[in-house]
Protein backbone atom coordinates (compact mmCIF):
# COMPACT_ATOMS: atom_id res chain seq x y z
CA UNK A 1 0.00 0.00 0.00
CA UNK A 2 1.39 3.32 -1.13
CA UNK A 3 1.09 6.45 1.00
CA UNK A 4 -1.05 9.12 -0.61
CA UNK A 5 -0.35 11.70 2.06
CA UNK A 6 2.13 13.77 -0.03
CA UNK A 7 -0.45 14.13 -2.81
CA UNK A 8 -3.20 14.96 -0.29
CA UNK A 9 -0.95 17.57 1.35
CA UNK A 10 -0.26 19.12 -2.04
CA UNK A 11 -3.98 19.21 -2.92
CA UNK A 12 -4.74 20.69 0.48
CA UNK A 13 -2.20 23.45 -0.03
CA UNK A 14 -3.84 24.44 -3.32
CA UNK A 15 -7.42 24.39 -1.99
CA UNK A 16 -9.42 27.59 -2.48
CA UNK A 17 -13.04 28.43 -1.66
CA UNK A 18 -15.31 27.21 -4.47
CA UNK A 19 -18.75 28.30 -5.64
CA UNK A 20 -21.15 25.37 -5.38
CA UNK A 21 -23.07 24.43 -8.50
CA UNK A 22 -26.67 25.73 -8.59
CA UNK A 23 -29.50 23.21 -8.17
CA UNK A 24 -30.48 21.64 -11.52
CA UNK A 25 -33.92 23.37 -11.87
CA UNK A 26 -32.21 26.77 -11.53
CA UNK A 27 -29.54 25.81 -14.05
CA UNK A 28 -32.19 24.63 -16.53
CA UNK A 29 -34.24 27.80 -16.06
CA UNK A 30 -31.10 29.87 -16.62
CA UNK A 31 -30.22 27.86 -19.73
CA UNK A 32 -33.70 28.31 -21.24
CA UNK A 33 -33.79 32.01 -20.39
CA UNK A 34 -30.45 32.54 -22.15
CA UNK A 35 -30.71 29.97 -24.97
CA UNK A 36 -34.07 30.91 -26.48
CA UNK A 37 -33.38 34.64 -27.00
CA UNK A 38 -29.84 33.89 -28.25
CA UNK A 39 -31.21 31.25 -30.63
CA UNK A 40 -33.88 33.66 -31.91
CA UNK A 41 -31.24 36.33 -32.53
CA UNK A 42 -28.72 34.04 -34.23
CA UNK A 43 -31.38 32.70 -36.61
CA UNK A 44 -32.76 36.17 -37.35
CA UNK A 45 -31.42 36.13 -40.95
CA UNK A 46 -33.59 33.09 -41.72
CA UNK A 47 -36.86 34.56 -40.37
CA UNK A 48 -39.19 34.99 -43.31
CA UNK A 49 -42.62 35.17 -41.72
CA UNK A 50 -44.52 34.56 -38.51
CA UNK A 51 -46.70 31.48 -38.18
CA UNK A 52 -50.34 32.00 -39.14
CA UNK A 53 -52.09 30.19 -36.30
CA UNK A 54 -55.44 30.33 -38.16
CA UNK A 55 -54.20 27.74 -40.68
CA UNK A 56 -55.50 24.15 -40.54
CA UNK A 57 -53.37 21.93 -38.31
CA UNK A 58 -52.59 24.84 -35.96
CA UNK A 59 -53.83 22.93 -32.89
CA UNK A 60 -51.49 20.03 -33.56
CA UNK A 61 -48.58 22.35 -34.41
CA UNK A 62 -49.12 24.26 -31.16
CA UNK A 63 -49.20 21.01 -29.16
CA UNK A 64 -45.97 19.89 -30.87
CA UNK A 65 -44.39 23.26 -30.07
CA UNK A 66 -45.25 23.03 -26.37
CA UNK A 67 -44.13 19.41 -26.26
CA UNK A 68 -40.81 20.39 -27.89
CA UNK A 69 -40.28 22.97 -25.14
CA UNK A 70 -41.00 20.37 -22.43
CA UNK A 71 -38.66 17.83 -24.08
CA UNK A 72 -35.91 20.45 -24.47
CA UNK A 73 -36.13 21.41 -20.78
CA UNK A 74 -36.21 17.77 -19.66
CA UNK A 75 -33.24 16.82 -21.88
CA UNK A 76 -31.13 19.67 -20.58
CA UNK A 77 -32.15 18.82 -16.99
CA UNK A 78 -31.14 15.19 -17.59
CA UNK A 79 -27.80 16.30 -19.09
CA UNK A 80 -27.03 18.56 -16.11
CA UNK A 81 -28.06 15.91 -13.57
CA UNK A 82 -26.06 13.17 -15.26
CA UNK A 83 -22.96 15.34 -15.32
CA UNK A 84 -22.77 15.33 -11.52
CA UNK A 85 -21.17 12.20 -10.08
CA UNK A 86 -23.54 9.79 -8.38
CA UNK A 87 -26.75 11.37 -9.65
CA UNK A 88 -29.14 9.81 -12.09
CA UNK A 89 -31.65 11.72 -14.25
CA UNK A 90 -35.34 11.08 -13.52
CA UNK A 91 -36.31 8.79 -16.39
CA UNK A 92 -34.86 8.58 -19.85
CA UNK A 93 -37.77 6.31 -20.86
CA UNK A 94 -40.19 9.14 -20.05
CA UNK A 95 -38.13 11.39 -22.29
CA UNK A 96 -38.22 8.83 -25.11
CA UNK A 97 -41.99 8.54 -24.67
CA UNK A 98 -42.41 12.31 -25.00
CA UNK A 99 -40.16 12.33 -28.08
CA UNK A 100 -42.29 9.53 -29.57
CA UNK A 101 -45.43 11.57 -28.90
CA UNK A 102 -43.84 14.62 -30.57
CA UNK A 103 -42.92 12.52 -33.61
CA UNK A 104 -46.47 11.09 -33.80
CA UNK A 105 -48.01 14.57 -33.66
CA UNK A 106 -45.75 15.78 -36.47
CA UNK A 107 -46.39 12.68 -38.58
CA UNK A 108 -50.12 13.17 -38.04
CA UNK A 109 -49.82 16.77 -39.18
CA UNK A 110 -47.77 15.56 -42.12
CA UNK A 111 -50.26 13.03 -43.36
CA UNK A 112 -53.27 15.29 -42.78
CA UNK A 113 -51.87 18.15 -44.84
CA UNK A 114 -52.66 18.98 -48.45
CA UNK A 115 -49.45 20.39 -49.98
CA UNK A 116 -50.01 23.60 -51.89
CA UNK A 117 -48.56 23.90 -55.39
CA UNK A 118 -44.74 24.03 -55.31
CA UNK A 119 -44.53 23.03 -51.65
CA UNK A 120 -42.42 20.12 -50.43
CA UNK A 121 -39.42 21.07 -52.51
CA UNK A 122 -35.95 20.63 -51.16
CA UNK A 123 -35.32 24.39 -50.99
CA UNK A 124 -37.82 24.92 -48.18
CA UNK A 125 -36.29 22.00 -46.29
CA UNK A 126 -32.78 23.41 -46.61
CA UNK A 127 -34.03 26.75 -45.32
CA UNK A 128 -35.43 24.99 -42.24
CA UNK A 129 -32.19 22.99 -41.83
CA UNK A 130 -30.08 26.17 -41.85
CA UNK A 131 -32.54 27.92 -39.52
CA UNK A 132 -32.29 25.13 -36.95
CA UNK A 133 -28.50 24.98 -37.17
CA UNK A 134 -28.05 28.73 -36.78
CA UNK A 135 -30.57 28.85 -33.90
CA UNK A 136 -28.83 25.99 -32.13
CA UNK A 137 -25.27 27.34 -32.31
CA UNK A 138 -25.50 29.60 -29.23
CA UNK A 139 -27.52 26.90 -27.48
CA UNK A 140 -24.75 24.36 -28.08
CA UNK A 141 -22.21 26.83 -26.79
CA UNK A 142 -24.26 27.50 -23.65
CA UNK A 143 -24.69 23.76 -23.04
CA UNK A 144 -20.98 23.08 -23.37
CA UNK A 145 -20.10 26.02 -21.10
CA UNK A 146 -22.64 24.84 -18.50
CA UNK A 147 -21.37 21.25 -18.64
CA UNK A 148 -17.77 22.38 -18.59
CA UNK A 149 -18.41 23.90 -15.17
CA UNK A 150 -19.28 20.53 -13.64
CA UNK A 151 -17.44 18.26 -16.09
CA UNK A 152 -18.93 14.83 -16.58
CA UNK A 153 -17.99 11.23 -15.91
CA UNK A 154 -20.30 10.36 -18.83
CA UNK A 155 -19.46 13.07 -21.38
CA UNK A 156 -21.00 11.34 -24.41
CA UNK A 157 -24.38 10.80 -22.72
CA UNK A 158 -24.44 14.27 -21.13
CA UNK A 159 -23.59 15.93 -24.44
CA UNK A 160 -26.10 13.83 -26.40
CA UNK A 161 -28.83 14.89 -23.98
CA UNK A 162 -27.73 18.54 -24.11
CA UNK A 163 -27.70 18.27 -27.93
CA UNK A 164 -31.29 16.96 -27.85
CA UNK A 165 -32.20 19.97 -25.71
CA UNK A 166 -30.71 22.35 -28.30
CA UNK A 167 -32.36 20.46 -31.19
CA UNK A 168 -35.85 20.57 -29.65
CA UNK A 169 -35.44 24.22 -28.61
CA UNK A 170 -34.47 25.23 -32.15
CA UNK A 171 -37.34 23.13 -33.53
CA UNK A 172 -39.64 25.06 -31.19
CA UNK A 173 -38.28 28.39 -32.48
CA UNK A 174 -38.75 27.14 -36.04
CA UNK A 175 -42.44 26.39 -35.30
CA UNK A 176 -42.93 30.11 -34.63
CA UNK A 177 -42.09 31.03 -38.24
CA UNK A 178 -43.21 28.00 -40.21
CA UNK A 179 -46.39 26.71 -41.86
CA UNK A 180 -48.53 24.81 -39.38
CA UNK A 181 -48.67 21.81 -41.71
CA UNK A 182 -45.55 19.86 -42.71
CA UNK A 183 -44.36 18.19 -45.88
CA UNK A 184 -42.30 15.05 -46.11
CA UNK A 185 -38.99 16.49 -47.38
CA UNK A 186 -39.37 19.51 -45.13
CA UNK A 187 -39.91 17.38 -42.02
CA UNK A 188 -37.06 15.04 -43.01
CA UNK A 189 -34.77 18.08 -43.06
CA UNK A 190 -36.00 19.06 -39.56
CA UNK A 191 -35.02 15.60 -38.33
CA UNK A 192 -31.68 15.76 -40.17
CA UNK A 193 -30.98 19.12 -38.54
CA UNK A 194 -31.79 17.65 -35.12
CA UNK A 195 -29.37 14.75 -35.66
CA UNK A 196 -26.67 17.15 -36.91
CA UNK A 197 -27.08 19.32 -33.80
CA UNK A 198 -26.74 16.31 -31.47
CA UNK A 199 -23.67 15.03 -33.36
CA UNK A 200 -22.04 18.49 -33.43
CA UNK A 201 -22.63 19.02 -29.70
CA UNK A 202 -21.03 15.65 -28.94
CA UNK A 203 -18.02 16.25 -31.19
CA UNK A 204 -17.38 19.86 -30.18
CA UNK A 205 -18.04 19.45 -26.47
CA UNK A 206 -16.23 16.20 -25.73
CA UNK A 207 -12.87 17.81 -25.10
CA UNK A 208 -14.29 20.46 -22.76
CA UNK A 209 -16.73 18.37 -20.79
CA UNK A 210 -14.75 15.20 -20.14
CA UNK A 211 -13.26 14.87 -16.65
CA UNK A 212 -9.85 13.99 -18.03
CA UNK A 213 -7.36 11.89 -16.15
CA UNK A 214 -4.30 13.59 -14.80
Amino acid at each position, binding site marked *: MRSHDPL*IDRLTESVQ*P*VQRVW*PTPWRVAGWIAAALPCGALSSWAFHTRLTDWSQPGAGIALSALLLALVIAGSSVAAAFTLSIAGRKPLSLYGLLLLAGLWLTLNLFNLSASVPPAGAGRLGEGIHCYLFMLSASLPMMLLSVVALQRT*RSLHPAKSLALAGCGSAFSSSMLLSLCHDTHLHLIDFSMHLAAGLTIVALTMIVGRRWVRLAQA
Partner: protein
Amino acid sequence: MPETDNRARLWPHLMARAQEGDKHAYNLLLKAMVPAIRALACKKISDAALVEDVIQETLLAIHRVRHTYDPQRPILPWVAAITSARAIDALRQRGRRQEVQDEDALNHQPAESAEVATEADELTSYLGNLPLRQREIVESVHLREQSLAQAAAETNQSVSAVKSLLHRAMLNLRKFGNNHEKS
Protein backbone atom coordinates in the same frame (compact mmCIF):
# COMPACT_ATOMS: atom_id res chain seq x y z
CA MET B 1 -19.36 -1.03 4.33
CA PRO B 2 -21.14 -0.23 7.63
CA GLU B 3 -17.88 0.96 9.24
CA THR B 4 -17.22 3.34 6.38
CA ASP B 5 -20.84 4.51 6.52
CA ASN B 6 -20.39 5.41 10.19
CA ARG B 7 -17.18 7.31 9.58
CA ALA B 8 -18.61 8.93 6.47
CA ARG B 9 -21.31 10.66 8.50
CA LEU B 10 -18.91 13.53 9.18
CA TRP B 11 -17.72 13.82 5.60
CA PRO B 12 -20.50 16.06 4.21
CA HIS B 13 -19.74 18.56 6.97
CA LEU B 14 -16.00 18.38 6.27
CA MET B 15 -16.60 18.79 2.54
CA ALA B 16 -18.85 21.80 3.14
CA ARG B 17 -16.00 23.39 5.10
CA ALA B 18 -13.49 22.39 2.43
CA GLN B 19 -15.69 24.08 -0.20
CA GLU B 20 -15.36 27.25 1.87
CA GLY B 21 -11.56 26.90 1.72
CA ASP B 22 -10.87 25.20 5.08
CA LYS B 23 -7.57 23.39 4.42
CA HIS B 24 -7.55 21.43 7.67
CA ALA B 25 -11.03 19.99 7.02
CA TYR B 26 -10.06 19.14 3.46
CA ASN B 27 -6.89 17.36 4.56
CA LEU B 28 -8.80 15.33 7.16
CA LEU B 29 -11.50 14.47 4.66
CA LEU B 30 -9.19 13.27 1.88
CA LYS B 31 -7.12 11.19 4.29
CA ALA B 32 -10.28 9.66 5.75
CA MET B 33 -11.58 8.88 2.27
CA VAL B 34 -8.53 6.89 1.13
CA PRO B 35 -9.52 3.54 2.77
CA ALA B 36 -13.06 3.84 1.39
CA ILE B 37 -11.76 4.64 -2.09
CA ARG B 38 -9.35 1.69 -1.83
CA ALA B 39 -12.20 -0.64 -0.83
CA LEU B 40 -14.33 0.59 -3.73
CA ALA B 41 -11.46 0.26 -6.24
CA CYS B 42 -10.59 -3.25 -4.99
CA LYS B 43 -14.10 -4.38 -5.96
CA LYS B 44 -13.25 -3.71 -9.60
CA ILE B 45 -9.47 -4.22 -9.75
CA SER B 46 -7.32 -7.04 -8.36
CA ASP B 47 -3.90 -5.55 -9.25
CA ALA B 48 -2.66 -3.75 -6.11
CA ALA B 49 -0.44 -1.28 -8.00
CA LEU B 50 -3.30 -0.27 -10.29
CA VAL B 51 -5.58 0.18 -7.27
CA GLU B 52 -3.09 2.67 -5.84
CA ASP B 53 -3.02 4.55 -9.17
CA VAL B 54 -6.83 4.65 -9.16
CA ILE B 55 -6.80 6.08 -5.63
CA GLN B 56 -4.53 8.92 -6.78
CA GLU B 57 -6.62 9.61 -9.86
CA THR B 58 -9.79 9.58 -7.73
CA LEU B 59 -8.29 12.04 -5.25
CA LEU B 60 -7.35 14.36 -8.12
CA ALA B 61 -10.84 14.03 -9.65
CA ILE B 62 -12.49 14.77 -6.30
CA HIS B 63 -10.30 17.84 -6.02
CA ARG B 64 -11.33 19.06 -9.47
CA VAL B 65 -15.08 18.55 -9.03
CA ARG B 66 -15.43 19.28 -5.32
CA HIS B 67 -17.76 22.18 -6.14
CA THR B 68 -20.34 19.73 -7.58
CA TYR B 69 -20.94 18.03 -4.23
CA ASP B 70 -24.10 19.15 -2.45
CA PRO B 71 -23.63 18.77 1.35
CA GLN B 72 -27.36 18.08 1.72
CA ARG B 73 -26.88 14.78 -0.07
CA PRO B 74 -25.04 11.61 1.02
CA ILE B 75 -21.39 11.74 0.03
CA LEU B 76 -20.63 8.03 -0.51
CA PRO B 77 -22.57 7.69 -3.82
CA TRP B 78 -20.65 10.73 -5.10
CA VAL B 79 -17.28 9.26 -4.12
CA ALA B 80 -18.27 5.79 -5.37
CA ALA B 81 -19.29 7.13 -8.81
CA ILE B 82 -15.98 8.97 -9.22
CA THR B 83 -13.95 5.95 -8.06
CA SER B 84 -15.86 3.59 -10.31
CA ALA B 85 -15.35 5.82 -13.37
CA ARG B 86 -11.64 6.15 -12.62
CA ALA B 87 -11.28 2.38 -12.10
CA ILE B 88 -12.96 1.68 -15.44
CA ASP B 89 -10.71 4.24 -17.19
CA ALA B 90 -7.62 2.65 -15.61
CA LEU B 91 -8.66 -0.84 -16.71
CA ARG B 92 -9.32 0.41 -20.24
CA GLN B 93 -5.95 2.14 -20.40
CA ARG B 94 -4.12 -0.88 -19.09
CA GLY B 95 -5.91 -3.06 -21.64
CA ARG B 96 -4.81 -0.75 -24.44
CA ARG B 97 -1.23 -0.58 -23.15
CA GLN B 98 -1.00 -4.36 -22.86
CA GLU B 99 -2.33 -4.80 -26.40
CA VAL B 100 0.34 -2.47 -27.73
CA GLN B 101 3.09 -4.15 -25.68
CA ASP B 102 1.97 -7.61 -26.81
CA GLU B 103 2.00 -6.56 -30.45
CA ASP B 104 5.45 -5.03 -30.10
CA ALA B 105 6.71 -8.16 -28.35
CA LEU B 106 5.44 -10.38 -31.16
CA ASN B 107 7.00 -8.20 -33.84
CA HIS B 108 10.39 -7.97 -32.20
CA GLN B 109 10.77 -11.32 -30.48
CA PRO B 110 13.38 -13.00 -32.75
CA ALA B 111 15.69 -10.04 -32.83
CA GLU B 112 15.17 -9.06 -29.23
CA SER B 113 17.90 -10.98 -27.42
CA ALA B 114 20.63 -9.91 -29.81
CA GLU B 115 19.61 -6.28 -29.71
CA VAL B 116 18.95 -5.81 -26.01
CA ALA B 117 22.43 -4.63 -25.13
CA THR B 118 22.64 -2.21 -28.05
CA GLU B 119 19.19 -0.81 -27.30
CA ALA B 120 20.07 -0.24 -23.67
CA ASP B 121 23.20 1.65 -24.72
CA GLU B 122 21.23 3.73 -27.22
CA LEU B 123 18.58 4.52 -24.60
CA THR B 124 21.19 5.64 -22.11
CA SER B 125 22.85 7.87 -24.68
CA TYR B 126 19.52 9.42 -25.76
CA LEU B 127 18.50 10.08 -22.14
CA GLY B 128 21.96 11.49 -21.45
CA ASN B 129 21.31 14.18 -24.06
CA LEU B 130 18.17 15.39 -22.30
CA PRO B 131 18.22 18.23 -19.75
CA LEU B 132 18.19 16.88 -16.18
CA ARG B 133 14.53 17.69 -15.34
CA GLN B 134 13.25 16.19 -18.58
CA ARG B 135 15.35 13.07 -18.05
CA GLU B 136 14.01 12.60 -14.50
CA ILE B 137 10.41 12.81 -15.70
CA VAL B 138 10.97 10.34 -18.56
CA GLU B 139 12.64 7.94 -16.17
CA SER B 140 9.87 8.09 -13.58
CA VAL B 141 6.93 7.94 -16.01
CA HIS B 142 8.22 5.67 -18.75
CA LEU B 143 10.89 3.56 -17.08
CA ARG B 144 9.56 3.25 -13.53
CA GLU B 145 5.94 3.34 -14.83
CA GLN B 146 4.75 5.91 -12.30
CA SER B 147 1.56 7.87 -12.96
CA LEU B 148 1.80 11.57 -13.82
CA ALA B 149 0.37 12.37 -10.41
CA GLN B 150 3.05 10.34 -8.68
CA ALA B 151 5.81 11.88 -10.76
CA ALA B 152 4.42 15.33 -9.95
CA ALA B 153 4.28 14.58 -6.23
CA GLU B 154 7.79 13.15 -6.27
CA THR B 155 9.34 16.11 -8.06
CA ASN B 156 7.21 18.73 -6.28
CA GLN B 157 5.62 20.05 -9.48
CA SER B 158 2.11 20.40 -10.79
CA VAL B 159 0.73 17.68 -13.08
CA SER B 160 0.53 20.12 -15.98
CA ALA B 161 4.20 21.04 -15.50
CA VAL B 162 5.07 17.33 -15.61
CA LYS B 163 2.99 16.89 -18.77
CA SER B 164 4.74 19.82 -20.41
CA LEU B 165 8.21 18.51 -19.44
CA LEU B 166 7.32 15.08 -20.73
CA HIS B 167 6.05 16.53 -24.00
CA ARG B 168 9.27 18.52 -24.51
CA ALA B 169 11.36 15.46 -23.62
CA MET B 170 9.51 13.38 -26.21
CA LEU B 171 10.08 16.04 -28.87
CA ASN B 172 13.78 16.09 -28.03
CA LEU B 173 14.03 12.30 -28.08
CA ARG B 174 12.30 12.20 -31.46
CA LYS B 175 14.76 14.80 -32.75
CA PHE B 176 17.75 12.81 -31.44
CA GLY B 177 16.30 9.65 -32.98
CA ASN B 178 15.89 11.30 -36.39
CA ASN B 179 19.43 12.70 -36.30
CA HIS B 180 20.76 9.30 -35.28
CA GLU B 181 18.98 7.57 -38.19
CA LYS B 182 20.34 10.14 -40.70
CA SER B 183 23.90 9.73 -39.47
